[in-house]
């Protein structure tokens, strides 16, 4: 009797959670979110756990809140490609994924830097294609001044054309190392010449994309190798998974040409109760009284500093219209791994009403409400329970794997690697060694055909 092979899980690591991770970095022994040593430790740990890749986020401006720099969360990050190039020296197999913005950067330069990273790492580079949402970011960039800021559709188009252009550049050298001239004329770029770097070892560095809008899903289906999903429940995951995988055929792609990896957090304990207790304690650390008020101000769009975080929610309605301070919508509260998210994309008034109802029903303070209403750790339990749950997600078509955000960041990953990875291996759903040297091989992605 032949045993049908179990569907394999893919794992990646992201050292920064969303808001609230300040507690991790402030409290941990790391003491720096910028020095090289913590990144090196994380990369080595993830490689010990046979992860597919390590992903670094970028940052194009410091976050602001009501016109001032947001001081309650980790601020200040290193530039991803530079850190990953250094990590290539201290790791051998793990993929190195850099977030790089396609709104304010030019495809020629991005393609050069990513191709170089792929060469320096022997074929382990990935590009997480980001777009910039915020008008303020433009203040730091030439394009932001000279051309104004693109609308959402324009940003998507530009990102898609950036990827397309980068791939043309990577294909402009023949596989045996002859540079040939390229020319690209599109809506956003009109460029020509010779590309500066030979075809990368992977052919094309792996392209990663995040986002959930119909346009994001279409872009993922047409162009991405990996999608960072935000769905936390199996039902929502399955809907997204089926929808995006269903779109691939239109682009002549097979379902296994794209990996869907939701962002996820985890809390382990020797018993289920202990894990729950640790998770609650972690939430309390992450959602400080100040951060709870801050979260409320982002919804209410006004100064709430006179409120007591241990008292009831404000009975005033959120400010809408031109007097509103802060973001007009709530998208930046709902990052895939943000402890403040997901709170939906509801309008502020509806969301405030929802939170007040929750507070009344459960007798919760402001801080208690924020802890209760906002995101939770995705997987809480014993290592055995978490391993089963992760496998279930993948087996039932809700994901191909996960991008894990460790708490405390970044050293919490070691616990996962030591306690959960062996259980996944025992179940036969996770590799026991790297079988290839390139990121594409870890992800089971085909080597791109050279389009000469």
């Amino acid at each position: 009797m032949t045993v049908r092979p179990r569907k394999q899980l893919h794992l990646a690591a992201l050292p920064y959670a969303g808001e609230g991770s300040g507690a991790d970095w402030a409290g941990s022994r790391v003491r720096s979110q910028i020095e090289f040593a913590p990144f090196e430790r994380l990369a080595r740990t993830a490689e010990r756990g046979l992860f597919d890749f390590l992903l670094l986020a970028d940052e194009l401006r410091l976050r602001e809140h009501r016109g001032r720099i947001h001081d309650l969360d980790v601020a200040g990050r290193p530039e991803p490609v530079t850190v990953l190039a250094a990590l290539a020296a201290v790791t051998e197999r793990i993929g190195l994924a850099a977030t790089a913005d396609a709104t304010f950067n030019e495809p020629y330069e991005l393609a050069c830097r990513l191709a170089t990273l792929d060469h320096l790492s022997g074929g382990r580079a990935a590009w997480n294609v980001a777009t910039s949402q915020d008008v303020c970011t433009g203040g730091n960039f030439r394009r932001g001044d000279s051309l104004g800021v693109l609308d959402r559709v324009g940003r998507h188009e530009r990102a898609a054309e950036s990827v397309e252009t980068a791939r043309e550049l990577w294909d402009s050298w023949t596989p045996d190392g002859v540079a040939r001239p390229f020319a690209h004329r599109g809506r956003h770029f009109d460029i020509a010449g010779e590309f500066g770097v030979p075809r990368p070892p992977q052919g094309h560095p792996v392209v990663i994309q995040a986002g959930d809008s119909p346009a994001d899903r279409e872009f993922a289906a047409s162009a991405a190798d990996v999608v960072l999903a935000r769905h936390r429940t199996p039902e929502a995951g399955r809907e997204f998974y089926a929808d995006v995988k269903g779109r691939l055929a239109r682009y002549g792609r097979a379902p296994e040409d794209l990996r869907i990896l939701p962002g996820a957090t985890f809390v382990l304990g020797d018993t289920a109760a202990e894990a729950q207790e640790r998770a609650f304690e972690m939430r309390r650390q992450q959602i400080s009284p100040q951060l709870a008020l801050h979260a409320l101000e982002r919804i209410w769009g006004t100064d709430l500093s006179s409120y007591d975080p241990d008292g009831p929610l404000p009975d005033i309605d959120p400010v809408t219209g031109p007097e509103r301070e802060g973001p007009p919508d709530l998208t930046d509260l709902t990052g895939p791994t943000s402890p403040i998210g997901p709170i939906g994309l509801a309008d502020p008034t509806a969301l405030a009403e929802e939170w007040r109802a929750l507070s009344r029903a459960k007798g919760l303070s402001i801080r208690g409400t924020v802890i209760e209403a906002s995101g939770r750790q995705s997987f809480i339990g014993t290592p055995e329970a978490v391993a089963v749950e992760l496998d279930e997600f993948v087996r039932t078509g809700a994901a191909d794997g996960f991008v894990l955000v460790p708490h405390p960041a970044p050293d919490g990953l070691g616990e996962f690697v030591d306690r959960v990875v062996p259980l996944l291996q025992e179940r036969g759903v996770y590799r026991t060694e790297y079988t290839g040297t390139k990121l594409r091989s870890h992800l089971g992605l085909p080597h791109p055909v050279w389009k000469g």
Partner: protein
Amino acid sequence: MTASHGRGLLHLAAALDQQEVYDAAPYEEAARLAERGGLDFVTLGDTFARPGPDALAVLSRVAPATRRIGLVPTVTTTHTEPFQVQAAVATLDWVSRGRAGWRIDVSTTEGEARLFGRRHAAAADALWQEAGEVADAAARLWDSWEDGAEIRDVPSGRFVDRDMLHPVDFEGADFSVKGPSTVPRPPQGHPVRVVDATEGSARQVAARHADVALVRVAGPAQAAAVRAELRSTAQEFGRDPDTLRVLGSLAVDLGGGEHAAEPGHGGGGPRQTAQGPLYRGGPVDLAELIAAWHQAGAVDGFHLTPIEPLRDLERLVNGTVALLQHRGLFRTFYPGSTLREHLGLARPANRYAVTGGTS
């Protein structure tokens, strides 16, 4: 002319450039060799005009494989985003624990402009003017976080003290940057800025913004003249000229290791070629040349580009440098750990920091 014109410590640097090399090992090997010789820093060129890897990424890859030597990639300013350039250079400083430099250069050709499609080629003067603005904006962004702005104060929940973060609101002729930077102030305060000051249009930028100026000249008298000009211009910009190191930049061909310099090379000196001044001869004679120029006060040291990368670098380190060390003219160990310390340059004060109650 200032009183402190005399010679200080000898500084030596080498170029790691290798044709058609894209994997890390040869760069790592060369950088470790240069570090064994105690050199101040290594450079790696970069231009969009011809093939080559991204220099900053390569030297970042080299950083964990080395411990002391300075790492100075070329990063051009014409088609790149100033905000991204300063963030990447600051990150290299973090990754290398205070060993980063930045060789500033411009892209003058229409071919390079076509790779970006945003603007046409411009005259060197205008591009260097802009490069100076980028250097200025970068320094302001490196200062936009005061040292210690990350407070990680658990009781108040504050991760940073926002009063110690500053917008730079820089307005240049062709770009503006709001700030603050997204990268906290790097270990050196300002990574070391290097400018080739041979051409007239770059010389003002070098005098104003560079910590190290490179001059490609074939004789000590010429070198001394350019050095004097750079120092006096620096002083006109309000700088202490002793904060500027001027290095003679030579290509070196040490191929005939045991032979003396070829006749016609100016009595053992370099010869001007289309590619710049070239020294061809033995490592011993090169040591003589270096010692003589330095002792004459013509230069603060040398930036040497091996013609045959690994061969000439090996002869440079094991021959020329060993001899200079033997004669007590060059360090035998690194007394400091940052590139600024190797160069004898102080860590710059932060222009935004409030000191002693005055602002």
